[in-house]
């Protein structure tokens, strides 16, 4: 009874093994996308599946018994790659690599190759199992991507160089344009300041007009340069925490002489404490100067200008309010456009490039703020600069 059971078990075991081998053969032979074949311990091909035939082009009777080095390129053969791979596999048990392989017709394909050393129960090497996949398409796409990447890097470097040379050009152009005007300014300044003797009133009047006109040209070059820099995205703010109370006071004080000359009444309303904000002091100062100067330029004699600094929970507002010419509602939207100059009865005598407000708005926006305007034609305007509040030190 026991023997019978044993025989039955043995029979079943053998039958299962045979069935496993058949299933394995069936599976391997039917696979078309992978070349799966066996090599003997010397590297001679001993089996060949449908995938191998499809991939490499050899029929089983053409390849079985041949050495697997036929799949290697002449370069790899010269480097003795087939022998080295088998040696390597013998030591490590398993290797995987990707490289060019050769088909029967001599064409090449990019192969992913896995070689596994096969050993019997005693550990003796009996051969190798080799699985090869054709990754030519993937390799082609990868190469294409790499080539595109390289091309983009080259283009990016070229654009960067172009941008740098544009910046240098703007800087040089500003230098060349400013230089002759600087000469005119210095000589006129010498004469007006009395270095060449006394002037008659008429001479002084004419020279002053020449001086102002020349200064307008310099201002225009400066404005153009500033706008070119901001438009090129080349303005990097040098932010520091600064007290806006002090800054606004300073700007107004600096323009006192101008207000006086124009007989304008100026009042400043400042909080009794510092109002810190994180700003690029030089640039933000120019924004305030620009708006205060505009208020003065477009306010007739005996008019008033009121500068008010106030704060809310998160922001600080600088209001510059004048009793000047004002702006018609349909012109307000044009104010912050480049080269925009709104005609009014003072615009003939007031110089300007039409770039100042555009630049001021851009700089304020870079500070995370805004410039708002309220205006009534012939009554006056109010410009409000708002910036985020800084931390108190």
């Amino acid at each position, binding site marked *: 009874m026991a023997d019978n059971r044993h025989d039955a078990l043995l029979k079943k075991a053998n039958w299962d093994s045979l069935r496993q081998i058949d299933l394995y053969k069936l599976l391997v032979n039917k696979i078309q996308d992978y070349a799966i074949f066996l090599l003997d311990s010397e590297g001679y091909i001993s089996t060949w599946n449908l995938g191998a035939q499809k991939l490499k082009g050899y029929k089983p009777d053409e390849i079985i018994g041949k050495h697997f080095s036929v799949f290697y390129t002449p370069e790899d053969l010269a480097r003795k790659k087939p022998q080295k791979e088998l040696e390597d596999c013998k030591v490590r048990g398993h290797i995987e690599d990707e490289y060019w392989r050769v088909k029967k017709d001599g064409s090449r394909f990019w192969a992913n190759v896995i070689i596994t050393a096969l050993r019997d129960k005693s550990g003796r090497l009996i051969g190798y199992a080799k699985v090869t996949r054709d990754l030519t398409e993937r390799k082609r796409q990868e190469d294409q991507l790499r080539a595109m990447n390289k091309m983009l890097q080259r283009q990016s470097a070229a654009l960067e160089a172009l941008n740098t040379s544009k910046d240098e050009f703007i800087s040089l152009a500003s230098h060349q344009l400013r230089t002759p005007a600087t000469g005119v300014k*210095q000589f006129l300044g010498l004469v007006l300041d009395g270095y060449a003797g006394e002037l008659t009133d008429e001479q002084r009047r004419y020279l002053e007009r020449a001086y102002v006109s020349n200064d307008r040209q310099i201002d225009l070059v400066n404005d153009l340069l500033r706008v070119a820099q901001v438009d090129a995205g080349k303005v990097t703010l040098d932010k520091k925490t600064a007290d806006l109370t002090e800054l606004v006071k300073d700007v107004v004080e600096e323009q006192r002489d101008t207000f006086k000359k124009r007989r304008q009444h100026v009042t400043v309303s400042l909080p009794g404490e510092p109002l810190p904000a994180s700003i690029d002091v030089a640039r933000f100062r120019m924004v305030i100067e620009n708006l205060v100067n505009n208020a003065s330029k477009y306010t007739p004699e005996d008019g008033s200008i009121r500068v008010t600094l106030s704060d809310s929970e998160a922001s600080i507002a600088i209001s510059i309010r004048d009793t000047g010419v004002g702006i018609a509602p349909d012109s307000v939207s044009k104010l912050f456009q480049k080269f925009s100059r709104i005609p009014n009865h003072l615009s003939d005598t007031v110089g300007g490039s039409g770039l100042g407000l555009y630049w001021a708005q851009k700089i304020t926006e870079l500070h995370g703020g805004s410039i708002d305007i309220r205006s009534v034609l012939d009554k006056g305007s109010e410009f409000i600069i708002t910036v985020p509040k800084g931390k108190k030190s």
Partner: protein
Amino acid sequence: MRKILLVEDEADIRDPFTIVLRSNGYSVDVAVDGKDALNYCSEKSYDLILLDLMMPDLDGVGFLKEAFAEDIPSGTRIVLLTNLSSGTLLHQGLDFGAHNHEIKSNLTPASLLKLVESELEKLEVTA
């Protein structure tokens, strides 16, 4: 008397600056480019060097490198006077240790004097 070296290739800027400075009691040597300035500096030292940047032969940065290869002497202030408001030369000049820079087109006779006085005051403080 305070000694100033003015280095400027443009005669129309160099001449009025010289007139203003000499009329106000400064001893002014005038160099027309970086090489000329090197000759002056090899013979004497200055309290203040007003240095243009863009000049033929040897520009302002080249002059700074050759004249002060080691360090700018503590008794000398250097102000870059330029019409460049940005760009490599200006950055190089400031990186090299020039103490200040001023846009020439912004200067008037009065503001030039104010600039010079303020730089020389700094010299007195540091001296």
